[in-house]
């Protein structure tokens, strides 16, 4: 955090100055470690074992916050009889279809009396899915996609069949209650197991356990901060789940000083997830409709919404979005144009797209401030994809590698591609900087902050708002022009108008301003915020209607333009506010600064302690009071009990803090929503020098694998050839550079501070491999080989794991051949085995070899990689077993 979010780290230091203990878990010793009370070097890819060990410690030593756990988590909920744990099945959960490599998660549901129709349908559908998959020779990606991991990510999942009643045991003794399942599941994650898997000495581990548990409870809270070190794994979503379980057990969610804080790396990466430039989502975490299930609006809301909690109002959110996009064309009679939305059929993520480019189905590509030629895993595959396009549009500040690979990319040097043979047409369009346009970024704590335009951009430089708006206008003009339609053959199939209606009906009129007639960003923000039937700005999502009388471009952002005022541009100095600073900018939803803040008070609505008081129920005024906006109706008393048939927010009780969950509880056990299990389990990474000591199942059985051909994997421990790649490597970022370098390697200041690519190795590894400090090393994987300057440093700690010494190599990933500060891209080495829930790559762990000296040039580079593949006996099958 001190390296990558330095200014945010000042608050960690402020906490330390007030007595907080700071624990840093990282394979490397960094600037954060230097300021922490405890640094815990860990073997990369083993955090579930580490966190699971703490969960076990908490349960074994009864350190959990019992009242919180009983009232606010699903600890007492009873799970159906079909559920079998990894402890029973040697590392897999019940419901696994090995052919399809997919789980039927109806096996993980809450106990709910009679087996209801909805679950029956789901079973049936699963059979279809499996049959289909077998017919297609185990197209497991398709089968797994049918499980829809993207749908339930925000809690919009129904855990209980319709008409069923939750079964609970408040004594927590029932053998099938979540609490008992949790105890059995984590029982083997002992300090000894943690040491054996993670390489963390027992004493260090126990010190961490003590610090965390001593600092949790009524009077104290502990928070976890993480970044992509937890997400870029084939089990990444389950890393976060493990932390969620731990924090829920300790009562550290929804309270000041608690939480699990995702430290995100781009100015508006949170915003681009909320208003998603992501394939699987519509604005506000509404899932994109799926061809298999979502035929019309009613079916969609039925399948993807929940009956209770705030997802119970999903129809209002969807209809308001459709009204924002298609205006008067969207009516109740035509299902509000729901059929205008394109349908998904599987994983359409960025790595699938790269493969589709190689195969030739994806012919055009926009790159908007992204540099996949060096910034995405298996960068070589990305470049081969781009070399097979008809056209590529790059919008950026400078000539990044993704704009110039056709001229000077690595494959030109090796002779695998020849510039004259590449037919891709490339457009480079200079993009405006944040100082040259107005707009909002959403930061890592959900805060929308407005940046105002300071100057006009120069020359051909334009904002992306300008580009999107005028591209849309040009396309609409052309589609409206009969001559153009005839010339392009748009009506050849007789369905041209039907195809183009969604484009032509789109609401696409924005006022313009400035020297380049830029669309007014505040007008777009106002559309995102939404309007009532009279065209007045809405002030919150509770006003949204499902009858078409309201419009709203992103329901969770509703209120950011309340009263016609740009709330994101509020800049009252912090010195003139209380510590929550609620009048600085605007947080979604409804300017709430701490989510699930009902949990900051006890079930009766009193603060858990004076020290940790936040919101509390004022019986005199019959409302919740405190420095923040309540995460629920401010007049809902703690003793409110819903009618059994009540739906939506009123379906939850006055004691249920987790208002996005269908049962209002924090899920220690996730009955739906994850495709790889209701509980986190330690699996070894895709590539590992060690065997999984817990189970016969080595890796995540349902991880996503790319199609054969574009990617090769290493043998793991116990497989012939594993010794060819004996070391672990991990990628990371530096303070002085930014992601793939587009905003840092072209700056003289930053390039001088970190002038070239390097690798970090321990003195012991340097001796073992003959590496010299400041000399060169070549790092090899089955994907490629790269060279780096060697930094020999005791910051890299060799670890003892399963009686063997393992070395880890650190690779900052900012570089490429262009700009002032140059070097090979670490992403050349990485594979694209993916997490099955979110389809992110395992950038944080790979095995490799390292040797002294520079890498070969020209065709010899590929010969070196091929020689390694031969020595390790790597085929297209290697590493692909379940």
């Amino acid at each position, binding site marked *: 955090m001190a390296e990558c979010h330095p200014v945010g780290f000042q608050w960690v230091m402020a906490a330390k100055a007030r007595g907080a203990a700071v624990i840093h878990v990282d394979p490397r010793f960094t600037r954060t470690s230097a300021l922490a009370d405890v640094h815990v070097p860990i073997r990369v890819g083993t955090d579930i074992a580490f966190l699971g060990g703490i969960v076990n410690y908490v349960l074994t030593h009864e350190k959990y916050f019992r009242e919180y756990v009983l009232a606010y988590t699903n600890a007492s909920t009873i799970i159906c009889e079909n559920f079998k744990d990894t402890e029973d099945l040697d590392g897999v959960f019940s419901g696994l279809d090995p052919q399809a490599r997919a789980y039927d998660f109806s096996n993980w549901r809450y106990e709910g009396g009679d087996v209801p129709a909805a679950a029956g349908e789901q079973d049936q559908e699963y059979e279809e899915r499996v049959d289909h998959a077998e017919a297609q020779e185990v197209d497991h990606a398709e089968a797994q996609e049918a499980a829809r991991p993207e749908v339930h990510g925000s809690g919009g999942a129904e855990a209980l069949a319709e008409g069923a009643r939750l079964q609970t045991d408040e004594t927590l003794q029932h053998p099938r209650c979540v609490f008992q399942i949790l105890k059995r599941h984590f029982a083997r994650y002992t300090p000894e197991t943690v040491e054996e898997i993670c390489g963390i000495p027992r004493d260090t581990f126990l010190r961490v356990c003590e610090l965390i548990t001593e600092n949790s409870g009524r009077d104290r809270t502990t928070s976890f901060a993480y970044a992509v070190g937890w997400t870029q794994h084939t089990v990444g979503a389950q890393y976060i789940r493990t932390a969620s379980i731990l924090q829920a057990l300790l009562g550290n969610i929804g309270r000041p000083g608690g939480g699990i804080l995702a430290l995100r790396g781009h100015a*508006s*990466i949170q915003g681009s997830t909320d208003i998603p430039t992501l394939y699987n989502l519509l604005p506000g975490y509404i899932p994109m409709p799926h061809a298999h299930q979502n035929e019309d609006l009613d079916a969609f809301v039925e399948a993807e919404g929940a009956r209770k909690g705030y997802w119970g109002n999903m129809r209002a959110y969807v209809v308001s979005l459709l009204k924002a996009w298609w205006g008067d064309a969207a009516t109740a009679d035509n299902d509000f144009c729901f059929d205008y939305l394109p349908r998904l059929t599987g994983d359409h993520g960025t790595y699938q797209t790269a493969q589709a480019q190689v195969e030739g189905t994806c012919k055009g590509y926009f790159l908007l401030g992204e540099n996949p030629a060096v910034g995405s895993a298996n960068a070589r595959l990305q470049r081969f994809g781009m070399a097979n396009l008809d056209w590529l549009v790059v919008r950026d500040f400078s000539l990044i590698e993704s704009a110039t690979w056709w001229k000077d990319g690595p494959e030109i040097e090796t002779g695998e591609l020849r510039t004259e043979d590449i037919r891709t047409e490339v457009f480079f369009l200079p993009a405006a900087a944040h100082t040259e346009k107005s707009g909002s970024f959403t930061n890592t704590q959900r805060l929308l*902050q407005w940046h105002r335009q300071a100057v006009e951009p120069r020359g051909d430089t334009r904002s992306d708002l300008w580009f999107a708006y005028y591209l849309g206008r040009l396309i609409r003009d052309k589609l409206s022009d009969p001559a153009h339609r005839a010339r392009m053959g748009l009506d050849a199939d007789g369905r041209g108008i039907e195809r183009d209606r969604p484009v032509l009906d789109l609401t696409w009129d924005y006022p313009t301003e400035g020297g380049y007639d830029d669309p007014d960003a505040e007008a777009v923000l106002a559309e995102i915020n939404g309007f009532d039937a009279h065209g007045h700005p809405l002030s919150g999502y509770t006003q949204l209607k499902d009858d078409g009388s309201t419009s709203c471009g992103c329901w969770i952002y509703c209120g950011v333009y309340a009263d016609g005022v740009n709330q994101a541009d509020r800049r009252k100095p*912090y010195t003139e506010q209380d510590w929550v600073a609620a009048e600085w900018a605007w947080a979604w939803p409804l300017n709430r600064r701490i989510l699930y803040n009902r949990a900051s008070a006890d079930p009766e609505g009193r603060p858990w302690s004076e020290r940790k008081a936040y919101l509390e129920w004022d019986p005199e005024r019959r409302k919740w009071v405190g420095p923040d906006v309540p995460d629920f109706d401010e007049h809902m008393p703690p003793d409110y009990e819903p009618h059994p048939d009540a739906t939506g927010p009123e379906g939850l009780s006055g004691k249920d803090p987790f208002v996005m969950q269908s049962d209002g509880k924090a899920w220690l056990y996730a009955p739906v929503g994850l495709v790889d299990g209701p509980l986190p389990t330690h699996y070894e990474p895709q590539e590992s020098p060690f065997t999984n000591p817990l189970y016969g199942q080595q890796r995540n059985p349902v991880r996503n694998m790319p199609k054969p051909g574009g990617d090769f994997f290493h043998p793991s421990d116990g497989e012939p050839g594993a010794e060819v790649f004996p070391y672990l490597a991990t990628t990371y970022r530096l303070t*002085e550079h930014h992601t793939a370098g587009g905003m840092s390697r072209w700056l003289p200041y930053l390039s001088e501070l970190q002038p070239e690519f390097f690798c970090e190795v321990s003195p012991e590894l340097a001796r073992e491999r003959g590496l010299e400090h400041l000399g060169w090393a070549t790092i090899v994987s089955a994907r490629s080989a790269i060279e780096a300057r060697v930094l020999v440093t005791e910051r890299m700690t060799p670890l003892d794991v399963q009686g063997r010494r393992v070395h880890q190599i650190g690779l900052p990933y900012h570089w490429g051949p262009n700009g002032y500060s140059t070097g090979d891209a670490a992403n050349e080495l990485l594979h694209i085995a993916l997490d099955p829930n979110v389809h992110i790559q395992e950038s944080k762990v790979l095995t490799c070899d390292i040797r002294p000296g520079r890498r070969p040039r020209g065709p010899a580079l590929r010969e070196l990689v091929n020689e390694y593949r031969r020595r390790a006996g790597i085929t297209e099958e290697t590493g692909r077993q379940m």
Partner: protein
Amino acid sequence: MGIGDWVSSWPVYRQLTGADRTGRGAAARSARTERLRPRVADADKVVKSICPYCAVGCGQNVYVRDGKVTQVEGDPDSPISRGRLCPKGSATLQLTTGPNRLDTVLYRRPHGTEWEHLDLDTAMDMIADRVIAARLTGWEWEDDQGRPLRRTMGFASLGGATLDNEENYLFKKLFTALGAIQIENQARI
């Protein structure tokens, strides 16, 4: 200036004889010191902004003179950053005004070996034509089981984490209406 004035203007003399015995205040000031002005002092305006690098979201003050950005500093009002910026944020002036910025459209024709210049309007028109064509080529009305898809696999987009919310909103809206589904950004990378 007489010799007495000359001697008494020496900083060391003033340090030894004046009130500033540690030499860290008035004694250390010279005529040149008196002439120094902060480079932001003559700005025409100060524009409130937010750092474009990581997601902490530090406040920035952008100083403008004669229509040009002259300095970018931390905003002391921000409850997040309280005026601080990291090395990247402190380099924002160079990011936005440095020699790295290109300001003309460049074009590489199929099989071409060099960049060519193209005017912006022509480029926009060509891109619009290409989107329409790729959309049509990759169009899918339904899947192999007859379920409606109404989409195109002909073009894709990557990017958004560095963009404004309003920009992402327009891209998502336009591309989705065109039937494109392969719309992605750094959040999955």
